[in-house]
């Protein structure tokens, strides 16, 4: 298993151009979404002595007063943030075909090949993403319900900490289930690309079983843990940076972002590698149900 995790990490490393491209688009979109805010902030802060409260330290009162200013239009600016996030999602769905091809074939594609594959699979990736809203939505709804129950426990249960324990515990379970759902859909994506499969829904149904039987979930857990640890370490480091060190803060938090992108690609690479190593008849498909039962449980 570790070898497989290492080999999929190797895929991410060898094709790190993908990480940098995704990061670049992520950063540019983030920067673009902040442009209107940047201009408003600049008009308020750049020639004001009050702004030093946000540089030498971070004064909560000064920050809230800043956010309350009508010219900052925080709500409308926030809708811009949501907009750019959706653009980034569409971008990722668009390149997914190319990304999986790179990992399945473990070779560099030139720009034409990459975008041909991207275009070829875009609608199928989009359909898979739309399907994924159902299980993810169910998880979010369950999390909301449990959080509400936990809040009631926090006030009503004789044990003061019970609510928090239930809340944290349930969130952990929801997170683990979300990882399982992601594995399920990653496997479906990889199969669709490898086999140029047009029956997206059928592939999805059959990759569901694989999510449990492939043995990949443990690897997903390991990679997810890596993402969590790097995130915690990065944010922890950022907290201890002095307030005026804005450049260093930016670099540290962007490194965290890169680690998250790399982790997400690592998950895709792990799925792609596993699918790529299966013979086609080893994969569960509507036309080969028995093979699924007998072969797909064997890790490569």
């Amino acid at each position, binding site marked *: 298993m570790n070898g497989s995790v290492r080999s999929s990490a190797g895929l991410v490393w060898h094709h790190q151009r993908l990480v940098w491209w995704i990061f670049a688009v992520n*950063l540019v979109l983030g920067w673009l979404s902040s442009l209107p805010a940047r201009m408003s902030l600049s008009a308020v802060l*750049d020639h004001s002595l009050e702004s030093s409260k*946000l540089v030498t330290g971070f*004064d909560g009162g000064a*920050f809230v007063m800043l956010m309350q200013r009508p010219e900052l239009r925080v709500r409308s600016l926030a809708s811009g943030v949501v907009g750019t996030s959706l653009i*980034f*999602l569409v971008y990722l769905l668009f390149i997914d075909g190319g990304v999986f091809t790179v990992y399945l074939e473990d070779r560099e594609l030139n720009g034409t090949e990459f975008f041909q594959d991207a275009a070829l699979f875009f609608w199928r990736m989009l359909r898979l993403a739309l399907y994924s809203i159902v299980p993810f939505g169910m998880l979010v709804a369950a999390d909301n319900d449990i959080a509400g129950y936990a809040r009631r426990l926090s006030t009503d249960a004789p044990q003061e900490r019970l609510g928090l324990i239930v809340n944290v515990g349930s969130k952990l379970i929801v997170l683990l289930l979300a990882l399982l759902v992601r594995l399920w859909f990653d496997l479906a994506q990889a199969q669709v690309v490898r086999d140029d499969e047009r029956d997206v829904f059928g592939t999805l149904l059959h990759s569901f079983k694989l999510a449990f039987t492939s043995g990949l979930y443990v690897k997903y857990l390991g990679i997810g843990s890596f993402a969590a640890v790097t995130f915690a370490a990065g944010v922890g480091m950022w907290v201890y940076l002095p307030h005026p060190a804005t450049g260093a803060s930016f670099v540290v938090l962007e490194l965290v972002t890169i680690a998250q992108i790399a982790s997400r690609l690592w998950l895709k690479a792990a799925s792609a590698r596993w699918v790529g190593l299966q013979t086609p008849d080893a994969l569960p498909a509507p036309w080969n149900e028995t093979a699924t039962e007998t072969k797909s449980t064997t890790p490569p």
Partner: protein
Amino acid sequence: MAASGAAQSAPLSDRVVAYRIEGVYNAKTHALDATEILTYTNKTGTTLDRFPFHLYLNAFQPKSTWETEAKRIGQRDTTEESARWEDKHYGSNEVKSLEIVGAGDVTKQMKFVSPDDGNVDDRTVFEIVPPKPVKPGESIQFKIHFVAKFPEVVARSGYKRDFLMAGQWFPKVGVFLNGAWNCHQYHATTEFFADFGTFDVKLTLPAKWNVGASGVQTGARDNGDGTQTVSFHAEDVHDFAWTTDPATIVVEDSIKLSSRTVKIRMLMQPAHMASAPRYMAALKGAMRKFDEWIGPYPYPQITVVDPAHGASAAGGMEYPTLITADTSWWMPKSVLIPELTVEHEFGHQYWYGMVATNEFEDAWMDEGINSYVQVKVMDALYGKTTSYVNSRLYTLGQRGAYLTDYAPVADLDPLSRKGWLFVDDGSYDAISYSKSALMMVTLESLIGEKTVMHGLHEYFERYKFKHPNPADFTAAMNEAVGQNLDWYWKQSIYGTETLDDCILKAGSERVDWYSKAPEEKGVTVYHNEVIVQRKGTFELPVVLEAKFDDGSTVREHWDGKDRWHRFVWDRKAKLVSAEVDPEHGYWLDRDRYNNSWTEKADRRASGKVAGYWTLLTQWLEQALSWLA
């Protein structure tokens, strides 16, 4: 306050009322069956022919004024949006019988009245007309059998599991003031008002349950039937609250102040013991500062109640010699809510407890003045910019926190508005607490910090154990500081004027602007100009500080009455910065960003905040990428 019910000390107040209450608390039904004997002595100089009483717990009924207002404008624990009726929040004060001693039973003559809004379904005030009017100097005695049914904790009072905070639980007579009775209905935004007197309270409740109350404990008896009877005595106070909980841990200490040693008794929830030293340090610090700045604390004891989890609605409340705190088991050390709450509620022992202003009509006089002193005490104990939050991520001081509350609603309601007439609870809080505190902080810039504190000390000495009104406060302050500040009070207390001074325009230009000769530092003469605008409606004298590139600094003054003023300096130096209120003392100024101007742009702050904005967008993008 005496150590026992029998031993009375010399009165500090006029002691209009004497309450003797005996009650049995049923912990299963959360109800208290009690008999109250109230002796009222007419010290008004007027013959009294009727007596209004508060029945505060009747506020917690669906059609009451309190609940109606809570739904429409919010209350201290919920917004209007989140307010909803739940049966568990039902509470009541039911008068079973009312007798005027010597005149017989007058229960049937009780009449509910609604002096504020005419709501016939509100039963928080009733009146009784005695058969014989009570002449000045005479006393009348009421014997009232009542049942107090406590709600699950809401707005300061009630139970949560076994915990009970009994506030506003007994029929309480109104205050005869300025020739009329003052006995308002219980409103969602208002607090309380009552006369000074003595309280002797005897409570029977489950054995071994810890009990805390106003005053001092004078006796305890195990009844041998699973119950205990505990007695308390309080004097020169105008209210009495008590609490019980089998789970609490009692922490005791004492503090030696200038006039006496005061016993500190804290009833802590076991899960909150980590907050006990924090409460204690804040309380002792506050007691010392009040002793030093305002006046002596005259009572032998102060009790701090730490409410059970889920009962935070009972937290952060003041009663005479008893306060409720607020914390949780996970409270970070960097968030000073436990300290802040204890300090604030202890401050109310002065501004409410002793200087007993009308909380219905003049909320700012207790909440606001107390909030100002809270700023000073918390500054002294925990630092000016770190007295609210002191974390590595960000800091927050009292002034900044108050300004963020006040600025968005600055011109909605005047301080002088009656509590229940504010546009909503948010405005009531922001104006009564925050604006008042900022008004006093701003006053420091005009007359000096020590002068303000001296004025407050004199005001306290003059009006302790009395019921002053706003005019009494302003007159006392004017006299104490030796200045007529009515122009300031008029704008800040009685008006909705807002302060927003700004630099409208600033810059430097060569005097010989037509010359083609190159500029030469120290030789070329510049016309430097700053236009200060009074954007708001509040008129305050303005101080402007201008700095030049030769290192020189000038301070100029303007009376701040016109809408703008032009400052001009022709000198061999260029302006590098200009700032109104350079000492940063005008905290009523609702926009501090436009108070200054710098010639050179410093993009670090905008870059930092915009950088975080970029990053948050990136992370939101990352979160959504789980779908891809």
